[in-house]
Every structure is written in C-alpha cells, then in structure tokens.
C-alpha cells in the first residue's frame, strides 16, 4: 500500500540496561540502529564487539563452533525429524539450556575432537595407501631390503627405467657391462623395476650408461624387511585406522543424543550475536550509551510503553524525518499482496521519496503468470503444494513469502487454465472438458487481442502512477504535459481504429501538437525546444513496441499447451490396453512434470520482465535502502515467549 512512514529514534540510557533494552527491540523487531558518530564530544567512544561480549560468559561460546559440532553430529547421527519440525523455545527451556551450557560446551569440544581424529585418520590412510602403491611393484624382491646392499666386490642397485626404452636399455647393459646381472621385478604404469648387480670395477661405465637411459635409483625408507612384509604391515595399520574411525563414529552417535539441545543453543547464540552486532553501532560513555536509528512512526507509542516498563532512566526521542533525508524503506501491504513484494525486491527497492507499487504490480503479475502457464491442473498442483509446504514447514519471512507466491500463482494458473479449457495440456479436452471462455489455440486472434488489451491497461496504469508521483511532488505541469498529453495522443490513436475515428483523430492531433509544444520545455533556445518537442513524437513507436511485447503472454501460454499436447499424444499413440498403460503413465507423469518446471520458469521470467521493463520503466524510481530492524532469526526453534531470548 505504501512505503512505511519512519521516524528517527534516539535513545540515551544506562549501560547496565543496554542488554535489556536491546532484547525488547529485538522481540518487537521494529528498530534499526545506525552507525552513530558524534564529533568532538569528550568521553564518547564506539564500543567494540569483543569488549561487549567478553564481559560475561566465560568460556565464551561462539556460534561457529556450535554449527561445526552440529555438522559433525548430523553426518554420523541418524534421527529423522518430521518435516518442518521446530523446537519450542520457552522461558523454562532457555533456562535449562543456560544451566547446561558448560556441559554442552564439553559436547562441542568432544565433537571437535572427533572431527580432528577423523581427519587425522583420513590423511594417515591416504599416506599408507600411497606407500602401498609405491611398494607394490617390488613385491617380487624376496629378500629384506636391508640385505640388498653392496658386497665387497659387487654393486647392488634397485631402480626404475622407462618402459619405452627398456629393450635398448637392457641390450646395452648386456653389451657394455660384461660382468653384470639384472632382473625385472615388476612394473608401474610406465616404468619397470629392476634389480641390477655389477662388478665394482665397472662403476664408471655403469654410471654413464644408467644416466643415459634415465635409470632412477630407488631407496626405501621406513622398513627393512621384504617389501611383501612391509605391505602387510601397512595394511594392518590401515585396519587399525578403520577401527579407530568406527570408534570415533560410534562416539559421535552417542553424542547425537544432545543434538536438540545444541540446536537450541545455536539459535540462542545467534539471537544474542545479532544483538551484540548492534552494540557495535552504539556510542557509549562510562555509564551510559547512545543509540540512533529508525522506527516506523506508528510504533512510537508501543516503543515508549515497552521501554518505560523496563526503566525510567532513559531519554527517548522520536523525530520527524526531514524532506531531503534518506531513510530505509519498508513495505506495508495487505496479506495477499505481500508475497509479490519479492518480485519488486529482486528488481530494486523504490527510493524513499517514491511510491510502493506492489499493490498495482501484484494483479498484473498474477494475471500474466496465470496466462503464460495457463493450465488448470498445473495450477492446482502448484497451489496445493505451495500451501502445504508453507504451512507444514512453518516458513517465516522470505521463505513464507516465496511459498505463498507459488500458491497464489498456482491459483492464477488454475483460473486461466479453466478459462482456456487446458487441463494437463489437451488432457481435459480429450475427456470432454470444455473451456469456460475460449480456447486460445482455436481462436488465436482473440487471444492476441486479450494480450494487447492487458498490455495497454498495464502501460496506462504505469503512466498514471508516474503522474501520481509528479502530483505528490507538486509537479502538476509535468503530470499534465508528460502524462496527460500522452494519454490524449495514445487514446486518440486507439479510437481511430474504432467507429468514432473522427473523435480519435482530433484527440490525437491535439495531443501531438501539445507534445510538440511542451516536450522541449527544458531546452534553452526556441529552435531546440521545437526540435526536441517534435522528436518526442518518435516515442509513439516505443509505446507500440511495449504493447507488442505483451504478445509473449500468448506465445508462452501456447508453449505450455503444446508441450503438454506432445506428451499426451505420445501417451495416446501407445493405445489403451493395460500393458501400454504401464508404459504410458511414466511417460505422461515425467512429461508433465518437465512441462511444469520449464513452463513455470518461463512464465516467471517473462512475467517479471513485463513488470520490470514495460511497467516499472514508466514510473519506478529505484535505489531504496531496505529497513533491516534488529530481530529474531532462528533456524531450528520457534521462540514462544519474548523473555526466552
């Protein structure tokens, strides 16, 4: 309906009451604190997060370790909660968690220990597996490594050489070193593993030859026995690790019993952290603090009363916001429009001096999406699923908006689908369900007319909103010249297509002359006033292309209907015996699910586009900053009483 009217709030109170006061703000969820700077006042300084949180709560509990512990437990624990289940957090429960804090901290430490142990096991196993892979090719060496050493007269070498030169390498060994023996022990992917024994007198020649052929000496560390024994030893160590891992996972499973408490602790800490982040924005002296921020004007009395119930040692001021001051934007809309606020938010928030157009945009989005998906059965499915999950999952905030958006768009789709007689593509028509209004496929010209008509209505609405913004700002002449004359010209042009074309002609001419005379009014010289006035008439083509753009309503509706038809045809071609039904049903189900997914994506994208480009383009002024009050955001729990936080 409107952008919520805000007031500037400023509060001075005792530091000892700070947490209590912030808790009240958090529970109400209607005060946004802002960074405060006061220059040149002795003794005022910014508080920092660490000094605020460090004062109590030793050992300090942070949210991060709790969420890590939760992740660990969830990986190894196994208790399914019903979908959308939330813990109820009341005063008693909060006290219980508070008392258990030390114990839960211990649980978190244990979880960390388990996680550390498991990662140690993982890296240990990787290391052992690498060692096994390295030792494996030497398994044929049937002697302890420590004995594969040089003797008095001979040199004993273990090493690898490339497979592709193996033949030449071995031949040159036989030819050049007459006192030598070698043997292929095994192979890796591209190398053979050799044991090579030659007389020490041949050291020099051997060294050159080996170097030429890229022979790599292999040295073994970490074991002295045979490679086979070493591999067996590594395998035993891996088994030990596995046993330890099972042990650690078992421990995690026993700790899983505390997951409910940990989840509640997580939320309690998140709520607290949210509050503490706000304290960073406050200014404080030794005994007092100073908060500045914004709050909705209508909540003034509520805030005063709530704070008065805590302490009277405070100075609270509400101040009107000046004309040129920027303030955060919040929407206030009836419940049916609220889901559609997401569409606007994805584009941009309106600037605070502008208007909240959600209530004007929502019906168009609703209608357009309905036409583009335009299938009663799909709409029914969306509406039912959207409603079910929103309620079942107890969605809040943006999640709930999303859920209700899906549900209401489902209703739109159901309505238009029924009007067009489309149930699962032509599935309804095949069993004789007639369209309530008309079938776009058999009457495409009427359908196109409907699209262009809706487009015209939306474009004219957009112009009216721009005129309203101008009037609100006292720019009456702008409203008359920029929107009024265009109305005259465009409506005149439209009337020229009807029996009263003469009236339309006169309207169009008056409008056009008016535009030529007024559209150059910001220019300096007479000549440029006239030329930019004349050039402005060129915008007629922009309006024309805007209207034509709405033909996408028909095209996308057509796409949904025909894809549905394709799958129905596939199913029908199989005939109607019991056996073919078994094949046809999966085809139909998968096909229609595919159609819902693809077509609703298209409908969403193109409905958005029509709002953003054709509609918002006429009047929207973006760049607003969102109102982000201090509030309660929970993941696992539902806060029952304010006092619980």
């Amino acid at each position, binding site marked *: 309906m409107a952008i919520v009217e805000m007031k500037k709030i400023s509060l001075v109170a005792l530091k000892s009451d700070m947490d209590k006061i912030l808790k009240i703000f958090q529970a109400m969820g209607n005060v946004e604190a802002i960074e405060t700077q006061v220059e040149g006042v002795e003794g005022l300084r910014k508080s920092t997060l660490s000094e605020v949180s460090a004062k109590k709560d030793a050992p300090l509990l942070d949210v991060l370790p709790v969420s890590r512990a939760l992740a660990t437990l969830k990986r190894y624990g196994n208790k399914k909660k019903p979908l959308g289940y939330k813990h109820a957090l009341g005063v008693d429960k909060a006290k219980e968690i508070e008392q258990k804090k030390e114990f839960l901290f211990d649980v978190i430490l244990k979880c960390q220990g388990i996680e550390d142990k498991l990662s140690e096991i993982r890296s240990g196993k990787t290391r052992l597996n690498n060692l096994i892979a390295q030792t494996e090719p030497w398994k044929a060496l049937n002697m302890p490594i420590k004995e594969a050493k040089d003797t008095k007269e001979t040199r004993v070498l273990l090493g690898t050489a490339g497979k592709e030169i193996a033949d030449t390498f071995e031949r040159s060994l036989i030819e050049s070193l007459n006192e030598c023996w070698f043997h292929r022990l095994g192979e890796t992917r591209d190398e053979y593993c050799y044991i090579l024994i030659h007389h020490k007198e041949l050291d020099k020649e051997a060294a050159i030859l080996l170097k030429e052929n890229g022979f790599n000496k292999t040295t073994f560390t970490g074991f002295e026995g045979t490679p086979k024994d070493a591999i067996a030893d590594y395998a035993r160590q891996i088994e030990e690790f596995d046993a330890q891992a099972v042990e650690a996972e078992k421990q995690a499973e026993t700790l899983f019993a505390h997951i409910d408490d940990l989840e509640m602790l997580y939320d309690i800490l998140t709520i607290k952290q949210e509050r503490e982040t706000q304290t960073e924005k406050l200014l404080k002296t030794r005994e007092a603090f100073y908060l500045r921020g914004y709050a909705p004007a209508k909540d003034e009395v509520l805030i005063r009363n709530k704070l008065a119930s805590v302490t009277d040692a405070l100075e609270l001021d509400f101040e009107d916001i000046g004309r040129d001051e920027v303030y955060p934007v919040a929407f206030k809309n009836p419940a049916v429009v609220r889901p559609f606020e997401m*569409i606007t*938010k*994805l*584009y941009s928030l309106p600037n605070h001096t502008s208007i909240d157009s959600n209530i004007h945009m929502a019906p168009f989005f609703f209608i357009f999406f309905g036409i583009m998906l335009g299938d009663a059965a799909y709409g029914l499915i969306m509406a039912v699923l959207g409603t079910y999950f929103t309620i079942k999952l107890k969605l809040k905030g943006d999640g709930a908006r999303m859920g209700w958006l899906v549900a209401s768009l489902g209703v739109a789709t159901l309505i238009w689908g029924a009007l067009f007689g489309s149930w699962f593509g032509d599935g309804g028509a095949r069993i004789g369900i007639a369209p309530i209004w008309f079938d776009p496929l058999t009457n*495409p010209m009427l359908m*196109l007319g409907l699209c262009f008509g809706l487009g015209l209505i939306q474009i004219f609405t957009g112009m009216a909103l721009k005129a309203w913004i101008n009037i609100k700002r006292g720019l009456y002449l702008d409203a008359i010249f920029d929107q009024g004359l265009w109305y005259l010209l465009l409506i005149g042009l439209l009337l020229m297509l009807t029996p009263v074309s003469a009236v339309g002609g006169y309207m169009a001419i008056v409008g056009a002359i008016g535009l030529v005379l007024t559209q150059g009014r910001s220019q300096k010289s007479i000549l440029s006033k006239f030329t930019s006035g004349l050039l402005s008439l060129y915008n007629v083509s922009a309006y024309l292309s805007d209207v*034509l*753009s709405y*033909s*996408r309503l*028909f*095209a*996308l509706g*057509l*796409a949904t209907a*025909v*894809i549905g*038809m*394709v799958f129905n*045809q596939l199913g029908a*071609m199989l005939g109607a015996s019991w056996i073919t039904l078994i094949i046809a049903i999966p085809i139909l189900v998968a096909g229609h699910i595919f159609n819902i997914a*693809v077509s609703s*994506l*298209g409908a969403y*994208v*193109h409905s*958005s*586009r029509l709002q*953003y*480009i054709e509609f918002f383009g006429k009047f929207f002024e973006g760049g607003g900053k969102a109102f982000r009050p201090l509030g309660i955001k929970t993941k696992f729990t539902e806060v029952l009483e304010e006092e619980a936080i």
Partner: protein
Amino acid sequence: MELGQILAIAGVALSVGLAGIGSAIGVGIAGESAAGVVSEDPDKFGQTLILQALPGTQGIYGLLIGFIILLRTNFLAGMVDVSPEAGLMLLFGALPIGIVGLFSAIAQGKASAASIGLIAKRPEEQGKAIIFPAMVETYAVLALLASFLVVWFVRL
C-alpha cells in the same frame, strides 16, 4: 508421397532442427560458465541452473511449430493432401522460429553466461541477472508468434 507433403515435413525438420541446434549451443555456453562458478561456490548451483535453462526455450518453440505442422497435416494418422503451394507456405512459416531461434539462442546463451558471472560476484542481484538474457528472448517470442500464425492459418 507428393511434393507439398515433403515441403511440409522439411518445415518441421527446419523449425525443430535449427532452433534445437541454437538452444543446444546456447545452453552449452551458459553451462560452461555455470560449471566454473559452481566449482568455486557449490551453493550457487540453483541460481546458475535457472540462468542456464533460459536459452533452452527456443528449442521448445521450434518443437512447438514442428508439432503444429504435424498436427495440421494430420501426419500421425495418415497424412492429408498438401498442395505444393501450401507445403511451401508451411516451410516458409517454419523459417522464422528456425532461423531466429538458432541465432537468438546462441546470443541468449552468451548473455546468460555473462549473467552467471554477475551471480558469481553479486548473488543478491538474481532479478537483474535474469532480465538480461530475457531481453534477448523477446525476438524468439516474436518469431514464434509469426511462425504460429502462418502455419496455423495456411489453407492446405
């Protein structure tokens, strides 16, 4: 088999084939970008997948026109007679979505890829990121309409 029927089927082949090629290339281009972004941040899978899907619609539009030609010529249950002139008209009617589908899907794929880059840096701007590729699609939608009106109203 007569010439008119063959021309009509050529129309089916061109609308489904060309638009399908375009969508395949477009979705491919966007998919490469999406995979890159997801490798850095797997949480962006859903957001980037939506953008990757956008250039896929041209292929569907092509199939749609092809299907309508098949429907009008009653191909699935013994084809009706089609005069050579009518067959040629069906063929030409299929060309807008075939040709525009081919090129717009590729262009849209590039715009999608760029928007996926946008999501990588500013995930909160999903609304804007979707609009850039959607702008390209307008022309495929117009071509679809033109094709539809022709193939639907051709007198066989």
